[in-house]
């Protein structure tokens, strides 16, 4: 396919699009589907049909009055299911299938806006234009721009929005070193966590002399709390393919693989459709874009191992072995898959590449900070009003992200407490905690590293004041302990021992040696492990110890958890005035710690009590309370 073909494609598509009176976009991301988006789509088609109206679901297949698109994730998951109507650009939130008829009657046929379904600001004003909603307004959706707007299963939509122009330009008109240079100019750094400059990685692979080279897309997104790669693969799979084509041109690769987590079946399905369409249009296969370059892509599904996000472990599992990391050097650039030079890029990195080429490296580099150029997607989750997927330039602050985009912190009692979070965990199990003192700190690679955290893949978990930090450290340690591949002794045994020490603290079995021992062990694991998993596994402990040492000490010395999360430190008592002597608590108590007889208030024997809380749950008169 040559340039004129792409232009032709685009023109034809636009001509067809002009015939439609409106474009109905229903978000088909995992969140909205779980909330019933599938039924909404069906209801749209059914009601339109009943009214004698027609809607097309694929361009130019049939003449129709309306055009209905099922998009990838639009990011505003908390408010789903989402329905957007163009050209009015109006976004309806929390739509149910009962609302569909009204949307068709009023908005499609009369152009009226239904106030009831709009997003409401804190003063209860409905905001019709979705660009003006704070969640979107404060973002800079560059890589995610087409995610949630186009139909992921329709290549025409991608082409009509400038898709594959960058790949065509790179393949037909640029030298391989020019392609590498443009990534260096853009300052693009790996978005999977490492932050290594993409242009340099490509250049190292490009310089290797070998007739077989590979490009691997790392879609083994395993960080608990991060789902940006999933959204990109599901919402705009062609951008990943285009990024891989450009990477292949830069390094001289003939074959590409996409390694996707098995937990993401929809991503696999959409990528497969995208690959088929790209082959049909000569963007993959022999002589792509009419050049002499051959390049094709295959999908490989992972089998569930977090460590496979590490390059060498990923390669091992692609070769049919256990996914265990190997020492570097040799780097994959020299000897990767099947011993051939291999470039491995993360999904978000690859999706950024066509965008950078289209807007120009300089313009991309103008966003962000000195050392961290461009934008980064974050998965904003935890105790925050609006969870979802966001994209901001590097250098944005937690205040902007948590308050302006996320709408504020929600405490355990359901109140919005503004920016009063206890900690924000960034970078998943390898990352660290940010506290109130980092509220206005610019988030970028260097600044985060300087405070003992990291960008990682971009998970941002907001934790309210009712969260126990020792429990959080234990949660991450449990994760890395489960996922440690077992190769290095310090990681295999060290994570287990650190977990035991944390359990000691939580269960009240600790003494004055526990914290120093934990700290010492954490540093040993950090130094003595081979791969990133082991090297960063102690980070959550070290970072919570750094900022919340008092909370640890409170557990150890005072046998007290200020949040009431650690059951071992709780004690229950029965308020005599409220006790009706019904005896239900006595029946429920598994260890016979409750005594009493009819007519007299019951009592709990704290020596026998195991703090299970069964009596608290059982009491109908709220007579059982925490002492």
């Amino acid at each position, binding site marked *: 396919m040559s340039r004129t073909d792409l232009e032709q494609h685009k023109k034809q598509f636009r001509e067809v699009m002009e015939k439609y009176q409106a474009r109905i976009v229903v978000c088909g991301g995992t969140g909205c589907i779980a909330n019933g988006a599938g039924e909404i789509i069906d209801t749209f088609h059914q009601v339109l049909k009943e009214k004698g109206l027609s809607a097309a679901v694929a361009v130019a297949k049939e003449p129709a009055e309306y055009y209905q698109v099922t998009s990838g994730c639009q990011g505003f998951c908390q408010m*789903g299911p989402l329905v957007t109507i163009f050209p009015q650009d109006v976004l309806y939130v929390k739509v149910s299938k009962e609302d569909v008829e009204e949307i068709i009657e009023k908005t499609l046929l009369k152009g009226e806006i239904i106030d009831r379904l709009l997003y409401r600001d804190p003063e209860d004003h409905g905001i019709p234009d979705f660009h003006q909603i704070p969640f979107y307004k404060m973002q800079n959706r560059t890589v995610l721009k087409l995610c949630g707007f186009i139909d992921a299963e329709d290549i025409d939509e991608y082409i009509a929005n400038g898709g594959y122009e960058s790949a065509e330009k790179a393949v037909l008109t640029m030298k391989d070193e020019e392609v590498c240079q443009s990534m260096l100019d853009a300052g693009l750094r790996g978005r999977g966590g490492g932050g290594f400059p993409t242009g340099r990685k490509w250049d190292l692979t490009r310089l290797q002399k070998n007739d077989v080279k590979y490009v691997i897309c790392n879609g083994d997104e395993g960080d608990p709390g991060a789902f940006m790669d999933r959204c990109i693969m599901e919402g705009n799979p062609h951008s990943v393919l285009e990024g891989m084509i450009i990477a292949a041109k830069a390094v001289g690769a003939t074959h590409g693989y996409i390694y996707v987590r098995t937990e993401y079946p929809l991503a696999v399905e959409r990528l497969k459709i995208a690959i088929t369409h790209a082959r049909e249009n000569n963007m993959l296969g022999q002589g792509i874009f009419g050049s002499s370059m051959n390049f094709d892509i295959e999908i490989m599904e992972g089998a569930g191992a977090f460590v496979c996000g590490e390059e060498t472990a990923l390669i091992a599992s692609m070769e049919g072995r256990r996914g265990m990391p190997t020492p570097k050097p040799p780097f994959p650039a020299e000897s990767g898959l099947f011993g051939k030079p291999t470039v491995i890029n993360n999904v978000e990195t690859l999706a950024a590449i066509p965008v950078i080429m289209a807007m120009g490296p300089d313009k991309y580099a103008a966003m962000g900070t000195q050392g961290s150029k461009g934008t980064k997607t974050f998965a904003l989750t935890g105790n925050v009003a609006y969870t979802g997927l966001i994209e901001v330039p590097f250098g944005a602050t937690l205040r902007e992200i948590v308050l302006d985009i996320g709408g504020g912190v929600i405490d355990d009692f359901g109140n919005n407490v503004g920016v009063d979070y206890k900690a924000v965990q960034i970078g998943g199990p390898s990352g660290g905690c940010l506290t109130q003192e980092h509220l206005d700190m610019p988030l970028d690679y260097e600044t985060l590293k300087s405070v003992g955290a990291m960008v990682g893949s971009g998970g941002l978990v907001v934790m309210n004041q009712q969260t126990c930090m020792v429990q959080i450290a234990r949660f991450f340690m449990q994760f890395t302990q489960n996922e440690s591949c077992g190769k290095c002794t310090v990681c295999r045994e060290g994570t287990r021992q650190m977990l035991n020490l944390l359990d000691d603290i939580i269960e009240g079995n600790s003494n004055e040696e526990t914290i120093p021992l934990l700290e010492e062990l954490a540093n040993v694991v950090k130094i003595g492990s081979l791969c990133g998993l082991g090297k960063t596994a102690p980070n959550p402990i070290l970072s919570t110890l750094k900022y919340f040492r008092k909370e640890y000490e409170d557990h150890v010395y005072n046998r007290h958890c200020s949040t009431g999360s650690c059951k071992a430190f709780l004690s229950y008592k029965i308020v005599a005035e409220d006790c009706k002597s019904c005896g239900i608590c006595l029946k429920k108590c598994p260890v016979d710690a409750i005594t009493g007889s009819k007519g007299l208030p019951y009592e709990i024997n704290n020596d026998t009590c195991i703090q299970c809380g069964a009596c608290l749950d059982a009491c109908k008169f709220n007579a059982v309370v925490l002492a």
Partner: protein
Amino acid sequence: MKEQTIGNFDAVCEVLDNYNKDATKLIPILQDIQDQYGYLPEDIMTFVSTALGISSSTVYGVATFFTHFTLAPKGKHIIKVCDGTACHVRKSGVIIETLEKELGLSKDKVTTDDMLFTLETVACLGACGLAPVLVIDEKVHGAMTPESTIALLNSIKEAEKNEQN
């Protein structure tokens, strides 16, 4: 267990042929076998190692390394509770406890005796916006509470009962 698979080597032969008996494709081969048999039976794994010309310890090593593979048959309905960071912060622990209690399961016993349910926890399902999340038979259910979990479980049990009658 052996009785179930003896004489049923057709499926594994077909899978091996699809991958040209290429040992580097061991993981997709085992994935396809698990799709066919529901789990990885021991005699099938031995057969695979012979067919691919690799040791049975290599096959066993891979089969036990990755969490997706299971060496024991699973229940009819597979419940996956997400215990990723976002779900954990939003109290997924209570959901897991509720399910264990309702189904009489524990960390060591993950499948019910009637082979109706298997309970698994997963690190992250990538649906953090809906936390806490659980997936039953590939359908995602978000913002779960102990009450809604029990209601969901009862609706499946009810449907099973009706099916039997």
